[in-house]
């Protein structure tokens, strides 16, 4: 299923996650992704994963990038989503007009400065040299730079002048510090390219999101299996109880089938990519619920490290899709009939 290069990338990512994230995951949720971790992610080549090497990128194919996200997600979905957001910045946003942004791209990929962009693009108002407005859902609100659209044609880089109006009580990805902010700053224009007026940054990354969700589902399953083989109740190991063993078996099958599906899809804009994303988020939600349940009372506490998958998978569902709109779009591809709104 994977090439040797891809397998190598996966094991690199796996080692990175075990070494850098396994112990730090809880801290990341509380304190965010600090400069040190950002530097390490950059050094490992994850921040510019799919970017050409001339811009400091790792020149990975999408499959390799997905494998990286999947492995990181098993320990820290927040870090995986952070990597994907950085990739959206350089790979989908700034890269549209590299002549203007090349130096910025290098900064991001090298981890030198911290960057963010709104989860759902909304136009800010450009007024002379200043830019003003509100952004309801901004991850990493304290980043050095913010990239946003001023209007459908104009991308701007904003440094400073971002004020947190309200930190959202965040269900998931707490390390990203999702906030409602107001902006009042000097703007630097970056492009004059016509784009979708309300792009959601994760809309074009169905497969990458699917890989993150898959990583959550796998980690939830692995932890449930490990725990069930060490925890005793009623004179037996949990794993010796048929209903539990059979449930883990069923989910192992579903996860394997999903993994084959996700990595067989070539086109990120296809019906299949959308389906894979919805399927994997749903599976991550269900599997994490089971994993938490297997852990009993312990599962309800952060320090056990499984409840975050329960929160993050539900949060991911909201962050990457408005459910109805996306499903309508995919239904048209499947049925050739437009569902009523």
């Amino acid at each position: 299923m994977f090439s040797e290069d891809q397998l190598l990338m996966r094991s690199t990512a796996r080692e990175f996650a075990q070494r850098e994230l396994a112990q730090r995951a809880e801290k990341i949720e509380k304190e965010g992704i600090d400069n040190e971790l950002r530097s390490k992610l950059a050094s490992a080549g994850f921040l510019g994963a799919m970017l050409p090497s001339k811009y400091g990128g790792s020149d990975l194919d999408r499959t390799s990038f997905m494998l990286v996200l999947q492995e990181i997600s098993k320990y820290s979905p927040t870090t995986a989503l952070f990597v994907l957001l950085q990739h959206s910045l350089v790979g989908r946003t700034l890269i549209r007009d590299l002549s203007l942004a090349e130096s910025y791209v290098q900064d991001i990929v090298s981890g030198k400065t911290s960057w963010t962009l709104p989860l759902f693009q909304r136009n800010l108002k450009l007024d002379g040299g200043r830019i003003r407005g509100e952004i309801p859902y901004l991850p990493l609100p304290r980043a050095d730079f913010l990239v946003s659209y001023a209007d459908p044609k104009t991308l701007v880089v904003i440094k400073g002048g971002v004020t947190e109006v309200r930190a959202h009580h965040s269900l998931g990805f707490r390390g990203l510090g999702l906030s409602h902010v107001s902006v009042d700053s000097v703007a630097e224009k970056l492009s004059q390219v016509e784009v979708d007026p309300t792009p959601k940054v994760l809309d074009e990354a169905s497969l990458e999101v699917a890989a993150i969700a898959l990583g959550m589902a796998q980690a939830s399953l692995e932890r449930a299996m490990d725990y069930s083989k060490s925890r005793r109740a009623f004179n037996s190991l949990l794993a010796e109880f048929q209903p539990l063993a059979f449930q883990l078996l069923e989910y192992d099958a579903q996860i394997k089938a999903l993994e084959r599906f996700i990595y067989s899809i070539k086109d990120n804009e296809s019906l299949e990519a959308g389906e894979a994303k919805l399927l994997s988020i749903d599976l991550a939600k269900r599997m994490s619920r089971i994993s938490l349940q297997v852990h009993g009372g312990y599962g309800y506490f952060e320090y056990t490290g499984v409840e975050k998958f329960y929160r993050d998978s539900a949060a991911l569902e909201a962050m990457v899709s408005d459910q109805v709109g996306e499903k309508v779009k995919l239904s048209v591809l499947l049925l050739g009939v437009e569902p009523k709104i």
Partner: protein
Amino acid sequence: MSLIPENLDELRGKAREFALREFTEEKIRKYEEEEKYPEEIRRKAFEAGFLDMSNPWGMLVAMEEFCRVDPGLGISALSAAFGSEVIMLFGSDYLKKKYLEPVLKGEKISGFAVTEPSAGSDVAGIRSRLERRGKGYVLNGEKIFITNGTVANHFYVLARSSPPPSPEKRHHGMTMVVVESSWPGFEAEQMKGKLGMRATSTAHLKFRDVEVPEENVIGEEGKGFYYVMTFFDISRIHVATQALGIAQGALDMFTEYIINNGLNNRETYQFALADMATRVHAARLLTYDAADRLFKFAPDPVKTSMAKYFAGETAVYVTDLALKYTGMQGVTSKLEKFYRDAKIEEIWEGTNEVEKLVISRMLLKKR
């Protein structure tokens, strides 16, 4: 032929009013963020008369309405007498006077300490030891996930007082005692970082050579397991009611969302609403049916476990579905808290798995 006495509407209205007034958005978030027991709210609820164990239907309805507005504050406000049924049913007059009365007067808080680190739902697997010493006993052991753990003045504690006669009779030889939190050798450490229900106090208790006077034994020595199971047949109805309140609260929020966003005629939302409302109605009937039997002194453990299991699952189902269809609005609203709070209802006071075993074992025994 209605399942619930009809004269409860007024109390229900009063409970809802209280919760809406006292459980402000600000307080909900404050106690959640500080992971603090809401003593102020417990006191107000007591003064308003909601902790009235002589009116079990009233307490049930209050729990439902409180949890519908906020589960964490609601449970803390009404669980100050946690475990009292054990004393009411099995305790001596001395214990009733010394421990139950001040709790019912709102002066003290009680806790119920059964679960241990190595034995979750498997009560018979606990390892705490109660050993005779002179005229009294000495208690050693640990308890985990104990509600009211950092705020209770005393606990009803289960411990092993003699070894099990055989592996099949592991539930023999267990005894319940009352232990005060001020006694030497007692230690309670708050367990922070819960997924939800952060306004409830949850603690890890340690007992190191705690001296327990003989008169603090509840009922008979060796019958502790039976008392705990009897208690669960009562407390599970309260837990089912918590879950019912959570589910109803999430359904309320989802309905508001539909109306506020003009989605009344959209089938996706209609189907989701119908699914949720049907389950909530079923959970309510199951809960009231089990409560009705209990309050008539004819509890049916099968029906009680069914109510607890179904209502817990419903709370998770409804909060999940509501969250799914309210997107970022839902995820950044009070609904996300309900989603986190709900999950414990499938775990505490007997996991879904334990409830299923109770249900089927008793059904098969009847045959």
